[in-house]
């Protein structure tokens, strides 16, 4: 059990590419220990939001405040890990990367950490895979390895970007059970998802965005037909000659 839970406040956040906003003036908070799904059409800024939260993208405006943890204590599982699958490294070592915050570049990977890695592999259903090379795993098995790495990171906040893409039902169910277990340990969970049934069944809170905030709150109240239609309408095409946004000046 974790003594401290962490929350994340999003304050008037805008993330832009070439000055065109992908996330536009977003305000709200992921409460400590909450379990939130982020839903929205493609290009709605879901991944950009996660990247800004973990410090990989610099906000064009506004800020992200993490309370109860440091920004680099957030465990982040990207949509497509830049990971080179042909790299000659074994499963156990890949999982042990999760200890970076404790071991750093030079600290020892202790026997206790090794044991914890094996435990994590056991928890994701990959007992006996520890010395296999990552190149020999299937997509689903590899996603389990990445979940094990998130697990040993032991982070108060866990961000998952479309974690169940191209993953079969059984693996998804196993990994979802793990997410519930993390949530039970008072970790703050944020996951980008597309399967609305899955969101309704497993995630109490939902953030619906389409560049702008559409709805944020209890899943049942957010995922209404009305909101979903608005989200679809707002994901309009890229406008090369869009006028400058003046929301900030209006607010100031």
């Amino acid at each position, binding site marked *: 059990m974790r003594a401290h839970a962490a929350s994340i406040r999003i304050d008037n956040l805008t993330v832009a590419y070439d000055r065109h906003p992908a996330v536009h003036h977003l305000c709200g908070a992921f409460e400590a220990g909450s379990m939130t799904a982020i839903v929205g059409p493609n290009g709605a800024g879901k991944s950009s939001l996660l990247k800004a939260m*973990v*410090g*990989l993208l610099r906000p064009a405006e506004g800020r992200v405040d993490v309370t109860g943890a440091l*920004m*680099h204590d*957030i465990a*982040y599982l*990207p949509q497509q*890990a*830049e*990971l*080179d699958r042909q*790299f*000659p*490294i*074994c499963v156990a070592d*890949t999982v042990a*990367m999760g200890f*970076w*915050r404790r*071991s750093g*570049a*030079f600290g020892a990977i202790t026997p206790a950490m090794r044991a914890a890695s094996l435990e994590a592999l056991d928890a994701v259903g990959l007992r006996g895979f520890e010395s296999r*090379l990552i190149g020999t795993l299937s997509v689903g098995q590899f996603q389990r390895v990445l979940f094990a790495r998130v697990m040993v*990171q032991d982070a108060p906040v866990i961000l998952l970007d479309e974690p169940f893409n191209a993953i079969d039902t059984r693996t998804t169910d196993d990994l979802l059970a793990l997410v519930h277990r993390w949530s039970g340990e008072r970790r703050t969970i944020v996951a980008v998802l597309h399967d609305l049934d899955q969101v309704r069944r497993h995630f109490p809170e939902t953030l619906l965005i389409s560049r702008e905030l559409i709805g944020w709150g209890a899943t049942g109240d957010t995922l209404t037909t009305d909101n979903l239609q608005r989200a679809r309408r707002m994901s309009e095409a890229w406008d090369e000659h869009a006028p400058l946004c003046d929301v900030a000046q209006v607010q100031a």
Partner: protein
Amino acid sequence: MPGPYELLLLPFVEYGFMRRALVACFGLAIGCGPVGVFLILRRMSLVGDAMSHAVLPGAALAFLLFGFSLTAMTVGGFLVGLAVALLAGSVTRLTPLREDASFAALFLISLALGVTLVSVQGSSVDLMHLLFGAILAVDDPALVLVASIASFSVLTLAVIYRALVIECLDPGFLRSVHGHGARYHFLFLVLVVLNLVAGFQSLGTLMTVGLMMLPAAAARFWTAGIGPMLVFSACAAFACGYVGLLVSYHASLPSGPAIILTAGGLYAVSVVFGRHGGLLASYMRAPHYQR
């Protein structure tokens, strides 16, 4: 008919210059072999080649200022190589240009500068020496330099090993935990440049790249796992040095190219017969397991 002793050992027993050359190969193998493995793992195989050209203006400038002084040329080459590596690395990190493109741009500028410097003053013979070396004329200071760089290189790799492996495997992860991946990457580039100038006098920078890349590429076909690859690469590089020197001695061939051609032979054999992904292994049908 000469026996194995005459073939394999006598040249080194009889001639001091052969022994020195062998020791130089040993040092270069220890230094370059592992560095080459990381270049391959980072998909930067051609960066070694680019860097070997990039150090030219430094060495040429030193040659113009101080004459044929190994120390001056080594320091000059190292400084310019370092500048190119750091500039190219920074351009990669700060702009959308990819690593191979930024290295290509900077090494070409550097090479052109070097050729200009050499042609303004100095003869082409010296330039040839710089690029291709003369391993049979290695003196004591050169040996000490090679040994020092090899030691420094291996120790540094041992210290930054974990960070470097993660930075090669999953740079995004290292960024997300604020692991300062750039720091270790730059330090690694320093090692690349150092090892290239280590081979200045013995093999020349161009041939040193061969000793760096060929055994490392061969290692991929025989070993699984990074540790074994590093060991294999260093050992194979030394073996190529030894065999290459013998070939050059018995067949009266230039020693530097003989060493690299030996390494090339090893590479070719590995591509065909290698246990991990070699051509034969992938065409032969091995009996498979039930599960």
